[in-house]
């Protein structure tokens, strides 16, 4: 009976524990109670938690989700307007551009003597940092938390442990300090190599620091950089080499946010690094939110920055925004939420369940929901992807997002079979382009969530054309107001003209076999089978070479690939950011680096145009050059296929202002919630079903009871009865 009693005791205990949980709302609520009177936004972070939150080091979209809420770069993007529109954020107005010749004399914008461009920025007067112990001082003005030994500060494990905090206005020098941090070799910023090509004196600054024997905090203010000038407390000028109109877009990235020197001094305290007390984990910004908890293993919590400047929801958007309800909060002060909790959710299934139970306000922040795990949520209807009935019942809203990016399979133009610039080679590549039915591919493998790319430039960016003018005439024709893929017969004819009738080499009779390098995690067996069938329509055999990204990268660096897969997401909404994917100096074989022209495409006219596009401001002259470059891309058939990725994000009915922005992640301040509706829906959707508890208890009794009876019978049986029995 001992074990039966123990089982009963365990059951009783479990039941008590469960019943104990029914006091405060639904039993399955995974969220702790919100602080009284605070509007809390509940969301998830990426399955791979952020590794860097230092704006000089980080370069991942999952990380910028946090960085952009905490820091405020000089420039930003209008939340609602499309095409994407730059606007001042941390500065009062657009930077003033001044052109200089080799001697530093001012010249006009159309001069051919331009050797440098100077950007002058005026910092906002009302920009203040969040309260932080790094700013706390003693009465004599010295930093309060400046320790000489690790033991002195050993009691502080996290930033919220410091009782005293303070703040100060953002100074122009803080922007200059951060640019110096980009150049600091000790930080290893991914931007150093790229920016050193432009910012005057950056490479020399780095070399100077490399020569230093460093120990502890190095005040970068003591080391000047030629291209930086702090004119006064609120004015900064940055001088770059030559002309680079795209530089203003870089000012909207987190690499150029203000960082106070006090931050580095504070985190350089002895012993802080051992407790992960670093700027990489505890940012100090002037943005709308500040970090109050950083447990990348579990959750990251942001709270409204009480010192954030006056900022308001935009009063205008793109056509259709008013009707879509995107301007309901127009003119109201932002941010709306007091606190944002991002939980780590490694698997999609629990994430999805909690979203449907109402415990997450949105289904994700940085990754869309169109993968196979969400199949149950979507159906493909006549108008594209729609929500399934049970999901629609919850009032869930879809936010489609056409990313300013492109995914593609490219030809290696140096490959002896598919590469080359002769007419035969072009025809071979065009034949392959035609048989790869991208429309079908997207319908089958991405549930229609993608747009066939006829152009290297995605929608929403200058140089992308819609309609008949925007189609690739080598792969499609315009018929009945839509692009129709050319026929298989045309592909076969091209193959004949290329010297491969019926997919066989006309000279040797050998069948044509192509090799595609695929990333093993990204492409499944079904996709490979589909591609195999596509190419077999014109008699071409295909062999796939799956490999992880490291091996694929190795092949790209050495040019040992025939057809490879790649993708590019825009850093800024300018055609230059896509056209450089085919600029010959960007070929890894030319630059001996991780270049982006993995097709190793070389075309003198394209290169010349690219150099001009790079320095020409937006306008008709530039548009003509961009159009010609796109034409060359189509003529040469550089890529096998391409599409613009489209994702779907879901939001529960109580969340508003969830319009996706393809470039910036600084959108949390616009999110608004109806907390009352959320509570009501959560309670409605999460009534516990208790009968399984009773059924489970009954089942255990049913299982144990016969055993107990049999045991008793056996214990009470006599030897004689047993024998006879």
């Amino acid at each position, binding site marked *: 009976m*001992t074990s039966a009693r123990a089982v009963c005791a365990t059951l009783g205990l479990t039941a008590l524990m*469960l019943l104990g*949980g029914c006091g405060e709302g639904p039993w399955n609520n995974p969220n702790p109670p919100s602080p009284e009177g605070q509007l809390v936004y509940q969301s998830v972070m990426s399955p791979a938690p952020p*590794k860097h939150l230092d704006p000089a080091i980080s370069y991942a979209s999952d990380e910028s989700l946090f960085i952009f809420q905490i820091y405020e770069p000089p420039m930003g993007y209008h939340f609602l307007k499309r095409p994407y529109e730059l606007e001042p954020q941390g500065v009062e107005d657009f930077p003033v551009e001044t052109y200089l010749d080799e001697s530093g004399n001012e010249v006009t914008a159309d001069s051919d003597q331009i050797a440098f461009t100077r950007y002058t920025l005026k910092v906002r007067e009302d920009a203040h940092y969040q309260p932080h112990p790094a700013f706390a001082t003693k009465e004599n003005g010295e930093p309060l938390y400046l320790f000489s030994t690790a033991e002195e500060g050993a009691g502080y494990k996290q930033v919220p442990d410091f009782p005293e905090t303070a703040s100060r206005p953002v100074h122009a020098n803080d922007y200059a300090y951060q640019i110096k941090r980009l150049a600091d070799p000790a930080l*290893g910023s*991914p931007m150093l190599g790229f920016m050193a090509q432009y910012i005057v004196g950056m490479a020399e600054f780095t070399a100077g620091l490399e020569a230093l024997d460093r120990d502890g905090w190095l005040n970068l203010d003591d080391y000047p950089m030629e291209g930086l000038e702090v004119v006064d407390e609120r004015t900064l000028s940055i001088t770059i080499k030559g002309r680079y109109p795209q530089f203003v877009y870089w000012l909207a990235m987190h690499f150029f946010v203000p960082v106070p020197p006090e931050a580095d001094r504070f985190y350089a305290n002895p012993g802080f690094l051992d407790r992960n007390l670093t700027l990489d984990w505890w940012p100090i910004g002037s943005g709308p939110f500040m970090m109050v908890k950083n447990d990348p293993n579990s959750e990251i919590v942001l709270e409204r920055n009480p010192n954030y400047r006056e900022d308001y929801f935009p009063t205008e958007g793109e056509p259709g925004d008013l009707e879509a309800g995107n301007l309901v909060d127009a003119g109201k002060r932002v941010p709306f939420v007091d606190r944002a909790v991002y939980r780590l959710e*490694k698997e999609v299934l629990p994430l999805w369940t909690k979203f449907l139970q109402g415990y997450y306000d949105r289904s994700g922040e940085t990754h869309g929901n169109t993968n196979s795990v969400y199949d149950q949520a979507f159906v493909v209807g006549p108008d594209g992807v729609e929500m399934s009935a049970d999901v629609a019942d919850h009032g869930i809203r879809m936010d489609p997002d056409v990313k300013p990016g492109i995914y593609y399979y490219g030809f290696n133009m140096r490959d002896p079979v598919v590469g080359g610039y002769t007419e035969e080679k072009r025809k071979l590549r065009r034949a392959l382009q035609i048989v790869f039915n991208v429309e079908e591919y997207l319908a089958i493998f991405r549930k229609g969530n993608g747009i066939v790319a006829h152009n290297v430039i995605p929608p929403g960016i200058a140089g992308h054309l819609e309609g008949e003018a925007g189609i690739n005439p080598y792969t499609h024709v315009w018929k009945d107001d839509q692009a129709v893929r050319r026929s298989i017969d045309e592909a076969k004819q091209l193959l004949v003209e290329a010297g491969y009738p019926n997919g066989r080499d006309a000279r040797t009779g050998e069948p044509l076999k192509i090799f595609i390098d695929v990333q093993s995690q990204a492409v499944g067996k079904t996709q490979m089978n589909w591609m195999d069938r596509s190419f077999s329509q014109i008699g071409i055999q295909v062999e796939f070479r799956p490999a992880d990204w490291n091996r694929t990268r190795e092949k790209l660096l050495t040019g040992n690939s025939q057809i490879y897969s790649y993708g590019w997401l825009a850093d800024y909404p300018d055609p230059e950011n896509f056209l450089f994917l085919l600029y010959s100096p960007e070929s890894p074989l030319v630059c001996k680096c991780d270049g982006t022209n993995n097709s190793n495409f070389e075309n003198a006219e394209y290169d010349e145009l690219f150099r001009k596009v790079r320095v020409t401001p937006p306008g008709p002259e530039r548009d003509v050059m961009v159009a010609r470059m796109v034409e060359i891309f189509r003529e040469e058939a550089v890529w096998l296929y391409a599409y613009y990725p489209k994702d779907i994000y879901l939001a529960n009915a109580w969340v508003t202002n969830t319009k996706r922005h393809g470039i910036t992640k600084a959108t949390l301040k616009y999110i608004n919630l109806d907390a009352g509706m959320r509570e009501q829906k959560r309670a409605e959707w999460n009534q516990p*079903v208790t009968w399984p508890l009773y059924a489970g208890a009954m089942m255990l009794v049913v299982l144990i009871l016969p055993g107990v009876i*049999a*045991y008793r019978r056996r214990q009470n049986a006599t030897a004689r009865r047993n024998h006879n029995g």
Partner: protein
Amino acid sequence: MLAYIIRRLIYAIPILVGVNLLTFTLFFVVNSPDDMAASQLGDKYVTPEAIQAWKVKNGYDKPLFINSESEGLQSVTDTIFFNKSLRLFAFDFGRSESGRDITTDVSTRMWPSLAVALPSFVIGIWVNICVALMVVMFHATRLDRWAVFLFVSLMSISYLFYIIGGQYLVAKTWKLVPVSGFHSEGDVWRFLILPVLVGVIAGIGSGARWYRTLFLEEANQDYVRTARAKGASEMKILFGHILPNAMIPILTGVVVLIPSLFMGSLLIESFFGIPGLGSYMLDAIKSQDFAIVRSMVFIGSILYIFGLILTDISYTWADPRVRLN
């Protein structure tokens, strides 16, 4: 016994060096320091200078095993293997490739791992032993045959099925507990019920069947027949005679696992959002963070060796005839 333990600890050193060497070799067969640098720096605008700078900053700019440019002992010590792996013997785990202190991370994350693994382990053993003893009591009956059938069926089901099934039924359909999550403060038990339940149920098949085999062997011994002839109750025979005599094989399988409980479970932690060491290891492998991988393998090896020593010691407790010398 002390001499025995010291001897075993000395034997552990070459094992640890071997494990380190193997981990190091396997890791760098798949990843080069350049791959690691590219992975840490991101995919865009990565210049060769940036990769080189990252390698210098993180100590990956040296040869793997032998530095032909150095002379004497330095040709061995001025290498990645010496600097990265052998430092572990001083329990200097250093920093992860992303700059976090590994010792701090490990000491923080082992508690959530333990919070799930310990109850699963203890309750699991208790349930398995009870079920196995009960089945042994009805040996060679229809109940016994059905129980074995049930055990084999339970063993055949994938662990993932238990997890997903448990989440679907208990958390999603019946809404009795949170589907995943963990909070270090407050009502943490609410998050532990489901993973512990899943862990226990998933282990019943193999556990109870294994114990049944052990107990059956003992049940056929003469001392059991003698006890029964003397009129001892079945409970007394099972818990008072069979169980203690089957302790040696039970301890062999169980005690070795105790120290490893700190290491957590990859699947359970991943699906239930437990911020433990299992998911720490998984993340490190995914992000090519060699610093964490080597530290975790090293800690795992030490705990395993410690578990083996504990097993030996436990034999002396279970069977006074055993002497360690």
